[in-house]
């Protein structure tokens, strides 16, 4: 940096352009190399086994043929598609409505409602499944509402998935709706354009990219998720469960790899849809834009408030059931109040060290993950790097969400534990857990950052460049300040997810760096629900605390960094 500034001082204009290009392309190559190690090579180490038999001989597509011959397995493809489409169709409109209310209406307590919407990410994904069993199971107090259908099946999976995926929708669509040019709406108002037309011609096109991202994220999350299907799915076979049956139940890595490959298909498909949409996406926040400020409108605000309150109550209700349930002595037979579940003495000896390990791991993942994902999104969106590099970066970033944790984790074993791998020393360390968690949760931060950056006009870069200002100055003075809320969002997202991650790290943790989330599963496994509950609550409290710090920071930094948005104030 210092050297670069020297150069700037001595020789303006042209050499800077050259340095800029070298720096940008260099950064791009470094990032690609990192992603190759974090994502591509481990995945290849496992997924390539889909073309091998048990003795590592290449057999072409034989495993896929065997797969297609098994009616049970084919049924699971159909079931997975059904569940994921249903979850997407329910969650996206709900999340859109919610995000719309938060950004485009004047309802009170927006920060609180936003916080409630994000609650499902903060708790382990097991929680909605357990709560729904208590509510709608055969002993549940609301089972009548299901009209004789069982919660242990597609209904339960869909309900729990909607709960689990809702925050992703709000996060991504909210980011898209949050930045928009108020002048367009003023013009529309001047011409008395009808409200529905404004919505249809201004609002929707502007957030098209965010909507598509949200659909993709929710669909893939639903199809890949294993924990919910395991707890509440009954015997309903979905692909994620089939992977588990093959790998954990029968140690058939080849067949597990086949299903892993199949699960990558939706991600590839969306990648191409997205590229198509992308070409037609226009930037919302031009350099002359005036940030849209919602104006009070009694009827509209009241409707929006009613909607948000109903959704928020549902989310709180599901959480509340889990909290209440933990106070019952023995649900459903002895409902007297008891603190037995919070008997911390039942903790296993490694309990607290696992907790601190999780904190260290999640912080590391949040720090490095944010730098990587935001940097990557910046390079993809804001840099004149060669199109091939750009496309490659983007598709690598999109892969992880389509990879079940168990596939990624096993891939890490095969890749990093290979005696021939010079990076083998990382195996059994905390670093590899951080790496694996970043890889596992890479996609959503990438998409969130990308959605935010897309809405910042390219004109900022163009003007800077023509004035001879190097890109890192524009990045530091304009792009990063504008993006502070998103950067904090991304860091928090990675942190809370790393706190609850299980499937990806279950194969690679060592005795010295066991994690709290794994301890929860182990304790639940051995029937020690009390201690499991206590540890899960520690995770939840920590994540809530981090979230509160994030909101505080945003409040503190936002006004200063965003002065430009409110010209009157400056």
């Amino acid at each position, binding site marked *: 940096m210092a050297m670069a500034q020297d150069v700037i001082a001595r020789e303006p204009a042209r050499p800077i352009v050259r340095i800029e290009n070298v720096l940008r392309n260099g950064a791009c190559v470094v990032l690609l190399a990192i992603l190759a190690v974090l994502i591509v090579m481990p995945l290849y180490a496992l997924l390539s086994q889909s073309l091998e038999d048990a003795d590592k001989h290449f057999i072409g597509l034989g495993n896929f043929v065997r797969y297609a011959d*098994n*009616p*049970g*397995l084919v*049924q699971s493809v159909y*079931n997975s598609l059904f569940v994921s489409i249903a979850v997407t169709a329910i969650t996206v409109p709900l999340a859109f409505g919610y995000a719309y209310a938060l950004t485009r209406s004047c309802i009170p307590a927006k920060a609180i409602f936003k916080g409630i919407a994000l609650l499902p990410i903060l708790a382990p994904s097991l929680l909605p499944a357990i709560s729904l*069993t208590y509510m709608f*199971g*055969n*002993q549940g107090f609301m089972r009548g509402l299901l009209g*004789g*259908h*069982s919660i*242990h*099946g*597609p209904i339960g999976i869909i309900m729990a998935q909607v709960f689990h995926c809702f925050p992703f929708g709000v996060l991504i669509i909210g980011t898209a709706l949050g930045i928009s040019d108020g002048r367009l709406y003023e013009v529309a108002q001047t011409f008395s354009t009808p409200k529905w037309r404004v919505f249809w011609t201004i609002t929707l096109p502007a957030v098209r990219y965010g909507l598509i991202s949200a659909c993709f994220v929710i669909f893939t999350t639903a199809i890949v998720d294993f924990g919910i299907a*395991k707890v509440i799915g*009954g*015997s*309903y*076979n979905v692909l994620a*469960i089939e992977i*588990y*049956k093959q790998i*954990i*139940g*029968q*140690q058939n*890595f080849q067949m597990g790899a086949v299903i892993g490959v199949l699960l990558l298909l939706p991600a590839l498909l969306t990648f191409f849809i997205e590229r198509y949409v992308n070409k037609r996406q226009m930037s919302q926040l031009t350099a002359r834009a005036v940030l849209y400020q919602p104006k009070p409108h009694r009827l509209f605000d009241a409707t929006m408030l009613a909607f948000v309150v109903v959704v928020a109550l549902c989310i709180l209700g599901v959480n509340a059931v889990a909290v209440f349930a933990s106070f019952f*002595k*023995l*649900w*459903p*037979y*002895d409902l007297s109040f008891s603190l037995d579940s919070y008997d911390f003495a039942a903790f*296993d*000896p490694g309990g607290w060290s696992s907790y601190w390990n999780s904190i260290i791991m999640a912080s590391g993942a949040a720090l490095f993950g944010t730098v990587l994902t935001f940097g990557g999104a910046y390079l993809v969106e804001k840099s004149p790097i060669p199109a091939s590099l750009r496309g490659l970066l983007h598709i690598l970033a999109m892969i992880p969400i389509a990879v079940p944790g168990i596939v990624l984790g*096993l891939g890490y*074993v*095969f890749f990093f*534990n*290979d*005696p021939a791998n010079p990076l*083998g020393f990382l*195996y*059994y360390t905390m670093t590899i857990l951080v790496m694996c968690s970043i890889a596992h949760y890479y996609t959503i931060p990438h998409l969130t950052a990308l959605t935010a950056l897309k809405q910042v006009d390219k004109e900022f870069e163009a003007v800077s460049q023509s004035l001879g200002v190097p890109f890192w100055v524009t990045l530091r003075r304009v792009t990063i300040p504008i993006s502070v809320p998103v950067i904090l969002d991304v860091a928090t997202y990675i942190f809370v997810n790393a706190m609850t991650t299980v499937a990806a790290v*279950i*194969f690679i*943790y*060592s*005795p*010295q760096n*066991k994690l709290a989330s*794994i301890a929860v599963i*182990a*304790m639940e*496994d*051995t*029937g*020690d629900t009390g201690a499991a509950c206590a540890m899960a609550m520690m995770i939840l409290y920590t994540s809530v605390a981090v979230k509160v710090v994030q909101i505080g920071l945003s409040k503190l930094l936002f006004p200063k960094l965003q002065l430009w948005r409110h010209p009157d104030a400056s």
Partner: protein
Amino acid sequence: MIDKIAQRFGGAMLALAFVLLAGPVLAQSPPVTLVAYTSLQKEILAPYEAAFRKVHPEIQIAWVRDAGGVIHSRLLAERANPRVDIIFGLPVTDIVGLYKEGLIEPYAPKGYEKLKPRFRDARDPPVWTGLEMYLNVICFNTVEAQKRNLPRPTRWADLANPVYRGQITMPSPAMSNTGYGYIHSWMQGMGESAAWDFLDRLHQNVAVYTSSSATPCKYASTGEYAIGLSTDLTGPMMKTKGAPIDLIVPTDKTAWDVESIALPKGSKHPEAAKLMLDWAVTPEASQTFNKYYGIVGIPGLNNGPPNSIPDGDTLAADYSVEWSIDNRDRLIAEWFKRYNAKSEPKGN
């Protein structure tokens, strides 16, 4: 006489010299940390380590605990560069599977013959050494049974009675070792064609095939489903917590597995690992286990935890473990074909 004295004296001198020379060497033998992979419940680990280290203070144990299937898969995935020093408490079925993959080093602990026959491997030297034995049991919710008018099953065949439709849950043999235990024990007990016939009818009654062997008993404990086919590891624990369940072993005896200790190939500290194997066959080891498990390796110990099944050995069915291992892939494939396509769980 003098010779004898000299001999004795010499012997004593030799012993003294040995102690003087070797003593410090032994005492200074560097501390070793064994990485142990286990699927046992976590409660047993710390007490067992403490009891073991009273005899071998120089050996520390670093535990990696997970479900049996996860440990089995992890051992296979790490085979290129093994990280494990000792396998502690994995079902025999899994260990023999690993042995056939070439991942186990046979070893006969000193005093192996003192263990009960079911805790010993027929191979010489043995591949595995039994630590404790669990039984497959029925968790039967008495409150719900009364409410729903369900008779108490006494033989396995009773479970095919249509009165139990939608009331039974059991672990899937495709996911759980216990689930497979049910299948092969019925095959060996009833004969294959009669067993498939029974399974066809049982399938009509099963509401959910679960992925873990503990879940069916947890369902039975909360009355979610009245009857859960599970193990006597989960059952007594739930009953002690106050769940209204009875633990039933049908009169035609039940499936079991012996969770065992074994020496993995590529152990970084094979000598220390062998000391751990040697200690595992001592009465002290069995006594430590008996506080948490009903059936242990040394005969005559019967001090299991509350609600465990006394003299569980006598309820274990006689069958061939080797047969169950050799036929595993075939039986699971057939089970998969017959029942895995079922998608909608049956309501009550």
